[in-house]
């Protein structure tokens, strides 16, 4: 029985996730069998100590759990109708969706693109500059405070983090 819309949405996503889990666990079972037989062939070991046995069991229990989740979610009204292009477009246009994308985007930019040792840009970006850019982008996008305050807060934070971690804690930051 459905109690409210939030629960209905939850069960809808449960159905999708259960199906994804089922596919993933079948793939895991196949992978486990492949590496187990490969190990048995190379090392002449028994199946019960083959490296794929634990992952095979996890795959099996994940499959069973996913099936239980699917049945439970279906019984409580979950379905896949929300995946229709029309309903999907509504979610796609929501502010919440875009805010999530923006935060992940900025985290990606800071952690992966601007981090000096990741050769995505091919240029050297010092840690302090990456941090300063990230803080400014986050605060400006989400309108944390006035522009000048954001610059000042970002600057002070960058200095303190760099000083504390690099100088005091002696961590070799890029």
């Amino acid at each position, binding site marked *: 029985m459905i109690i409210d819309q939030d629960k209905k949405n*939850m069960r809808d*996503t*449960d159905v999708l*996730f259960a199906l994804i*889990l089922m596919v993933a666990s079948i793939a*895991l079972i196949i*992978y486990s069998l492949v*590496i187990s037989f490969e*190990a048995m062939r190379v*090392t002449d*070991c*028994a*199946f*019960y*100590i083959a*490296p*794929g*046995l*634990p*992952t095979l069991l*996890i795959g099996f*229990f*994940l499959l069973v*759990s*996913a099936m*239980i*989740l699917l049945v*439970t979610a279906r019984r409580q009204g979950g379905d896949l109708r929300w995946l229709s292009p029309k309903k999907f477009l509504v979610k796609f246009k929501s502010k*919440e969706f875009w*805010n*999530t994308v923006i*935060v*992940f985007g900025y*985290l*990606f930019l*800071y*952690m*992966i693109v601007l*981090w000096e*040792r*990741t050769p995505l840009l091919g240029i050297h970006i010092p840690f302090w500059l990456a*941090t300063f850019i*990230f*803080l400014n982008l*986050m*605060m400006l996008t*989400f*309108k*944390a*405070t006035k522009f000048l305050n954001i610059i000042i*807060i970002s600057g002070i*934070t960058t200095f303190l*983090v760099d000083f504390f*971690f690099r100088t005091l*804690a*002696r*961590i*070799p*930051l890029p």
Partner: protein
Amino acid sequence: MSLLQSFLQISSDFLASSVSFFTLGNLVMMFAAVMVGITFGVLPGLSATIGIALFTGLTYGYSFEKALIILLGVYVGAIYGGSITAILINIPGTGSAAATCLDGYPLAMKGESSNANILARISSFIGTIFGMLIFLFLTPLMTKLALEFTSPEIFWLAIFGILICGSISAPDLPIKGWIAGLIGLLMGMVGQEDIQGWERLTFGVSNLITGIPFVPMTIAFFGIPQIVKSMRSAQFKIEAKKDRVTINIWSLIKKNFFNILRWGTIGIGIGAVPGVGENIAAWVAYDDAKRRHKRKQEFGTGVYEGVMAPETANNAAIGGAIIPLVSLGIPGSPPAAMLLGALMLHGIRPGPLLSIEHPQIIPQFAALLLWASVFLFICGLIITKPMVSILKVSQKILIPIIAVLCVVGVYAYNNNPFHLLLVFVFGVLGYFLNKMEYSSAPLILGLILGNLADSSFRRALFLHHGNLWYLINRPLSFIFFAACVLTILSQTKVMHHVKKMFVKK
């Protein structure tokens, strides 16, 4: 050695450790650590787990003793700190303070915020001391028992920990807790396995051969989802009223003496269950206080015991959570899991042999818990009111700064930029799992115990030529196996019918 002799030995070692702590440097360090811990506890979204995860990397350059001072200080401070916001603004700074909101905030609304705050502080202090004493005297016994454990016992204990943690911590369906545990176990299998040295689930990525490190994963599954959620949500409003302490604290404590012992015992018991931790302990103690109270219908409107029970239990759970960590190498709570990472970073492998290799470690842990609780009391007195001002700072300013600290914390763990990539990828996964109400606690516990469960399982089978009977034919292994089966059955209709049958009879 007789029981009395070992009791006296532990007591004298504890006293020696407590006295040797008393240097200016240690005192300043503990003071600062507890202050930082309280700040982590106060800020919604941050927790003891994230605090310890951030500081684990930072303490790498320090000696083990200094690192332990910092990490235990942060741990104790953060568990207490959550209660400040729970009482003043009805937002639990940490999950373990969620139950404190129920009566703490109504007390604040009645103009009794000072009463509620001092009760929370004293309860947290008593809880920590109680947990510390039980830890001090019970851990050697547990260690002796743990020395009897063979591969099947370790395997079943690991599985039991994940099952019980999944059942209790899943906010929606228990099956989701188990799925999270299984995903964690699978993540724990990534890398070169122990028995044959075979590479599993690395897909040719050389950085994965050593496995997925769990300290960065804690940031991924606890920190990143919270950062994203906080940036989306609206700023909360602070309306803390100023008042004075108007109750006789000591008579209230005297009146509730046995209740406090019971809540402390609940905290320790639940804290000692692998992976469950402070959050659940607080709820169970709150429920106990409510059920036994003469005016139970008044709970939720501002009852003192409604603040005392969860705060005693969640801090007592700290001592409880360290018992299996030190004696078995299995953390009792997510912050204790972070401590496990810190110990390993300093070359110390927790487990039954720990107290033999490092005989001073149990009294040392206990002495630090004692001092941390003393500083909790002092710092709480100083910091409660200024903390409310910090909370007035917009989350839109605080959260980007916290995001920077999380990223630097991951990098500081072992200066590997690949871990940043891992944290980002698993952070996205963590966000969606969190949104679908999959608890991160069983997942992290699965990650920690995955390799241990795997090697114990296959070693047991190897020694007995694949005979599955050997996995359950010893009394201890059978008890753990039965506990696993009961945990699963308790979530099904079968157990419900069995219970009904007994009730009828």
